[in-house]
């Protein structure tokens, strides 16, 4: 019996469910020397903004127990150069590509969506709304249902066509289900869960915050229980909305945990730093695990932890 490893997000089909996480694979070139990146379910690009950005001052990272903090500050070339250089390369390589976009204002999201509209060959758009909203006291879009909704609506209105919109949420909210419901109502086809958790490390030598940006985003295995919880809660509330799960996945067992909680596909972030071929390891191990447990397709396993208690 052949095993069906394909994954779906919204209406889009992917050969397999293992993606890179935004900001953790640059634009794909760097990883391609370690494995054939066409083997990925998709590359999710770093979040691209309207203008070029030099990002935050350094130091930008601190290792933490089973995790790390980063405050890259979305360094990148801006959407125009990105569309000119990175996207053609990825499409030429025939790598399934999900573009991540990030804005500082609702208008930014509209502009970015319009720019993506013309690009044929993209598989989906991940909308990172975990960025500070310069029009609203720097509060993160995804921290508030009104701003989260506005950003996703702007994308929905401007994207046109069939490209699925995946809204990426932060776990740093009182009620993630509420935000999820709001962005789905605003037109998101899927949800990416979770972005990093806000944290800080103080360097006990200098006795100041270790990161130049003071706070940073916590990622890696340390936050996996938070990711599993968020995915489980949102899948319970919105069982028909596809979830791209992420947070601390570094092997097949971890990926299975997110799938059972309700993720339809899984992104690998921090694990790439420790192991450049982490995605290929996860891909292989997850498939083996699913088969050994008797599933005939990945999709059967999605949300399987929610099934009713057998009595």
């Amino acid at each position, binding site marked *: 019996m052949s095993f069906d490893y394909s994954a779906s997000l919204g209406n889009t089909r992917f050969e397999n469910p293992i993606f890179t996480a935004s*900001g*953790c*694979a*640059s634009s794909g*070139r*760097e*990883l391609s*020397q*370690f494995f054939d990146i066409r083997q990925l379910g998709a590359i999710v690009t*770093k979040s691209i903004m309207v*203008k*070029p*950005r*030099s*990002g*935050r*001052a*350094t*130091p*930008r*990272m601190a*290792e933490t*127990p*089973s*995790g*790390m903090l*980063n405050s*890259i500050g979305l*360094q*990148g*070339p*801006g959407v125009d150069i990105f569309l000119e250089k990175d996207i053609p390369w990825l499409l030429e390589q025939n790598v399934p590509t999900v573009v991540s976009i990030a804005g500082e204002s609702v208008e930014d999201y509209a502009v970015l969506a319009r720019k993506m509209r013309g690009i044929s060959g993209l598989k989906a758009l991940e909308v990172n709304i975990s960025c500070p909203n310069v029009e609203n006291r720097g509060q993160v879009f995804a921290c508030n249902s009104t701003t989260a909704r506005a950003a996703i609506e702007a994308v929905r209105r401007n994207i046109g066509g069939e490209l699925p919109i995946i809204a990426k949420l932060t776990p740093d909210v009182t009620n993630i289900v509420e935000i999820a419901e709001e962005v789905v109502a605003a037109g998101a086809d899927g949800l990416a869960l979770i972005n990093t958790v806000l944290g800080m490390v103080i360097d006990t030598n200098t006795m100041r915050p270790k990161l*130049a940006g003071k706070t940073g985003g916590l990622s*890696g*295995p340390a936050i996996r229980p938070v990711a599993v919880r968020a995915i489980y809660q949102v899948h319970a509330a919105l069982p028909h909305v596809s979830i791209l799960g992420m947070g601390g996945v*570094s092997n097949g067992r971890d990926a299975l945990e997110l799938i059972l909680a309700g993720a339809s596909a899984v992104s690998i972030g*921090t*694990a*790439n*730093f*420790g*192991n*450049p*071929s982490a995605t290929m390891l996860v891909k292989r191990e997850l498939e083996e695990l699913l088969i050994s447990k008797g599933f005939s397709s990945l999709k059967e396993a999605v949300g399987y932890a929610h099934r009713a208690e057998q009595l």
Partner: protein
Amino acid sequence: MNKFAEQVVAEVVSNKRVGAYHHMVLSVGDLANHAKPGNFVAISVGGAGSSMVLRRAFAIYRATGRESGVGYIELVVAPHGQGSTWLTSRSAGDGVDLVGPLGTAFGIPTQPVRALLVGGGYGSAPLFGLSEVLKSRGCRVDMVLGASSAMKIYAPLEGKRSVNSLTITTDDGSTGIPGKVSDVIPELIENNQIDIIYSCGPMGMLEAITKIAVEKDVMHQCAIEESMACGIGICMTCVLPIKGEDGVIRMLRSCIDGPVVNGENVIWDSNREIPEGTWGAL
């Protein structure tokens, strides 16, 4: 991006304490044949079940055994925090997960030149291999090594033999000349009519050398050490402001656009802020 980079399980061949450091030899196969002075490797630390999720970078001290399939890489490791302490407690026969060679290498002049190699602490590591290459090209090589104290000077005998002169400085005067390497460099440049400086060590030292090099109008290539999460160009944590040929300052990744860079192109005085005028700065 170092196109020769690969991920291997390297076997520890030997691990010897030398002063404050451990000299470690790792069997890495073909990878050694592509290693150039200035390149580094990134090693997983802590083993299975470790709480350390990131690799640690180590400059390649030497790469030897240049025949197909057999190759060794040597490192000089200072047991500092948890990661390096784990590494220096490996024994012969243990395997470690290693990615390399990574990063840029020191540029080797096509003509025989007069080179001054400056190392701080374990920063001397990549300089001995560099010295061998330079000597084989007919260069004169002078070397300055500095550290806080005698124990932290890494200068093995065979290394010393490969240079024309070796000057040592220590902060506490426990060996060599008391003071910093930057105190002795100007005179060495003059006396030995130095054409190019190669350096490796703490950022403060590299900045001081850049200043001297600019004043004295000699070329200066330095291997920088920014804190790195991935070592392969995918995380953007290791950036520093570097002025390009076009005069534009960009936040470049020291793991793939470095670690070896031209000292004068680095914006040293940015005080870890994004310097004004940096491309894309908001």
